[in-house]
């Protein structure tokens, strides 16, 4: 694989992360990260939608009339999202209930429209596929990190299993209820941005 193509996959994980660098798709990062399971399912759903939408738009890129290109993008994204929603309802009903409205909101996830406009419309299908995978992975990675800390500190569980032993609670340890509320997701995302900028030279602004 050419190094240019590898960059498409790895850049969104760090230097060009959709959430921590471009600050896109924050809304769902706040909403579905109380527990690990919905965060993982939403990440996989976004991965599916973004990769397919990128490839489809890229295949059609020379035929799409430029005046209605946003509409075309929306129709394709919406169709993919409905497919995801229907499949979840059929095969992962309890998860689909938890995610409820957020699956539908993938349609308006800024990352997806952003990648279609900025990348898929001007590039060949294979690089578009990689770009989709990379960005969805960058997005999912942050979602999962945030969900990990929120579930661990907020509920004392991971993936629904209790990990903090009962003896801790007997000594007076309590779960941090604030972790379950949306503001803590923002603060965790903020901490991740802080750590990332402190460790990555390219991201340090000069002034």
């Amino acid at each position, binding site marked *: 694989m050419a190094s240019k193509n590898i960059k498409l996959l790895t850049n969104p994980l760090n230097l060009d992360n959709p959430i921590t660098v471009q600050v896109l798709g924050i809304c769902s990062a706040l909403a579905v990260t109380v527990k690990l399971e919905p965060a993982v399912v939403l990440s996989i759903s976004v991965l599916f939608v973004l990769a397919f939408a990128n490839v489809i738009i890229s295949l059609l890129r020379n035929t*799409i*009339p430029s005046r*209605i290109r946003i509409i075309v993008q929306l129709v394709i994204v919406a*169709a993919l999202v409905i497919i995801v929603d*229907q499949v979840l309802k059929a095969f992962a*009903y309890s998860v689909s209930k938890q995610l409820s409205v957020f699956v539908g909101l993938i349609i308006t996830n800024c990352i997806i429209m952003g990648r279609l406009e900025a990348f898929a419309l001007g590039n060949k299908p294979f690089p578009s596929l990689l770009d989709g995978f990379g960005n969805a992975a960058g997005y999912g990675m942050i979602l999962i990190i945030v969900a990990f800390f929120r579930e661990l500190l907020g509920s004392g569980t991971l993936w629904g299993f209790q990990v903090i032993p009962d003896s801790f609670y007997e000594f007076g340890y309590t779960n941090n209820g604030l972790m379950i509320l949306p503001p803590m997701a923002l603060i965790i995302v903020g901490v991740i941005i802080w750590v990332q900028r402190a460790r990555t030279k390219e991201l340090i602004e000069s002034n």
Partner: protein
Amino acid sequence: MNTNSNVYTFIYASVMVIIVAALLSFIALQLQPMQKKNVEIEKKSNILAAIGVASTQDDAEALYKDHVKNSYIATEAGEKTEGDAFTVKMAEEVKKASSERQLPIYECFKNDSTFFVIPLRGKGLWGPVWGYLAFYEDFNTIYGATFDHKGETPGLGADINQDWFEEPFSNKTIFDADGKFVSITTHKGGKGAALAANDTEHGVDAISGGTITCKGLEKMLADCLAPYETYFKKNKK
């Protein structure tokens, strides 16, 4: 080809919409049976929850068979008619006048005791709320309750499906000492509000910040239970 001409744009849009619509309808039709099954399982699991039996997606059907022995439909006049309570659509029933409603009753057994589960449906703040109440054989004392909602505000009204809201319904009664139907009241004012209002027999604490949802739930209880009054009084033990 000129991809910016009007004709091309129109044809492109039309063809795209037709293809996408056909694809989506096909997928929706293929998945529908599985989705219906899931909704049924959820309903069974809710009924089981009312009698305090925890179930998962996988064992709900088997547990339902073990615990729910019989179900029938009552009328407002107190008659018992044959029929499968499970197929009654509550969303349609609650729109009818109470004399025309089909009133489903599920007869459940748990640890050699009999409980009667009554389905409920009403309106919350943003959409429908529903639930199931399990009664002891006196058709007056509540054994357990379970509620759920479509889209109440998370952290506020949405908490009606939490244990801390549902558990206080146990051992409340819906008839007062004189046998008058009083339903269950939700008391505003946070934890201990029902106690402060001196209504520990027919009242529970409402959710702070979820007043409209709680009022909707209260109305649902009154609306859905009232038509059963005659039947309850006739059949109580």
